[in-house]
């Protein structure tokens, strides 16, 4: 199997604070890989290292066979890497339609009409400003924006954060749909049960280093490990499992 993404011994800093201590991970092409971990474990920092926003000081990132370690974000995006950031970060001052004109689109099936067909809510609200959207609509817009790059790899940072349960279902359905379309996915999530259900492979990050990795199914079966590593408390885990 070929690799969509491969990262090796990443050491990433914010100024003087050393956040990532040799993170290594791989996303096999056509699979969903989930990256789990407690608050502050370094999940967002890992993603930022991969997409070029906070380049690692040491280590190597390879995207579809190209060494992108020192590339600026726009060049990495140009390889077909869509990034849906934590907190959605839609452009609140622009309309939905304008938000969708910001990405530098790549040729492929994901054009504006198909986006509106997948997200009818966005089509209805195309003239509304970003700040007038609900959290769920903002998340859809953030995903739609990344899809216009016609990504071969989609990286999502806590897409279900703060959303109503019905919308969370929708977000995970989209992840499954992307996989079915042949897009590789790297998913950071707090929602452990649903992520493991949709993922093929899982990594657990703790204190800036990979503490566990293996098939998602194996991690889902090991409740004690999940509680210890993924940071879900026993109550949350049982509530989620219901």
């Amino acid at each position, binding site marked *: 199997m070929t690799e969509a993404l491969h990262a090796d011994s990443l050491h990433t800093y914010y100024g003087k604070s050393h956040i990532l201590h040799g993170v290594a991970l791989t996303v096999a092409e056509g699979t969903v890989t989930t990256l789990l971990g407690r608050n502050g474990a370094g999940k967002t920092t890992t993603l930022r290292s991969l997409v070029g926003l906070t380049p690692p000081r040491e280590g190597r990132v390879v995207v579809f066979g190209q060494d992108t370690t020192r590339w*600026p974000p726009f060049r990495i995006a140009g390889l077909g890497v869509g990034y849906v950031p934590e907190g959605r*970060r839609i*452009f*609140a001052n*622009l309309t939905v339609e*304008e938000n969708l004109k*910001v*990405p530098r689109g790549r040729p492929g099936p994901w054009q504006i009409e198909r986006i509106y067909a997948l997200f009818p809510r966005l089509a209805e609200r195309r003239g509304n400003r970003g700040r007038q959207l609900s959290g769920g609509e903002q998340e859809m817009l953030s995903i739609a924006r*990344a899809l216009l*790059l016609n990504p071969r790899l989609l990286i999502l940072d806590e897409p279900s954060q703060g959303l109503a349960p019905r919308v969370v279902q929708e977000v995970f359905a989209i992840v499954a749909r992307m996989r079915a379309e042949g897009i590789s996915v790297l998913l950071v999530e707090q929602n452990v049960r649903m992520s493991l259900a949709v993922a093929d492979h899982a990594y657990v990050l703790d204190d800036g280093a990979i503490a566990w990795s293996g098939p998602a199914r194996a991690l889902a079966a090991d409740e004690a490990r999940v509680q210890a590593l993924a940071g879900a408390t026993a109550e949350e885990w049982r509530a989620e499992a219901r």
Partner: protein
Amino acid sequence: MTQLLLFNVTNGLIIGAFYVLMALGLSLIINLSGVINFAHGGFLALGGYLAFTLSPFLGFWGALLVSPLLTAALGLVLERLLIRRLYGRDPLYSLLLTFGLAFIFEDATRFVWGAQGLPVTIPDFLGQPLSPDLFFITWYRLFMVGVVAVSVGGLFLLLRHTRLGIRIRAGTLDLETVSTLGVNVGRLRALNFGVGIFLAGLSGVLAGGQLGLDPTMGAGLLMPSFIAIIVGGVGSLPGTLVGGLLIGVASGVTAVFLPSASEAVMYVLMALVLLARPRGLLGEEGLMT
């Protein structure tokens, strides 16, 4: 008295139009790149002087278009070599560098074109007054206001309807996210800087035709332009438009009754606006729509 008032109101509007062009360019650059360009007035003067040198060859109309373009081209070169290094740094650096550039511009202009003022020849028919009653309003003044209106309109159309403009507005809010969407933000900032400098060069040509040229002509417009930005609300381009016209007219009207206060009134106006609306008239942080 009415004539005098009318004269000064029109004068104020015209001066205000210059503040607007200058301030819009400054605002574009501040909003997207966080650089306060103290050399903006230097670019303005350069635009005027280039028109003076080029108009024998290109005529007034050719110079009106080509000088701002050349000014913008020089702006792009300086952005590439110097300004670019300021992005993301302490504003103190941008103050030091662009302040230094402003002095270099002024002295270079003096060195090339001389210290005394120079006239810019405008087409004869533009120099005529509208009518004997309105002897103080020449066609040229009307023409200037027209050019400013068209440029401002063009700028707003660019920002609203082109991808470049939409990306500039998005970048004003969150440049990092724009970069993850495949947009080369280095180029975006350069183009944005070029547009801002084009506007400065254009005001320089227009101002030269009305008031003649002088190496310090741009520096004098700088402070009022900052005031226009603050009065209108930092981050809001429509605010900058309103702010520029407002302080222009305010100082024009004050010139009738209390000539010595015509400059101070801008500061008073700014203080009053900020007391009532600390973010300026149309200010809403980071939302330049």
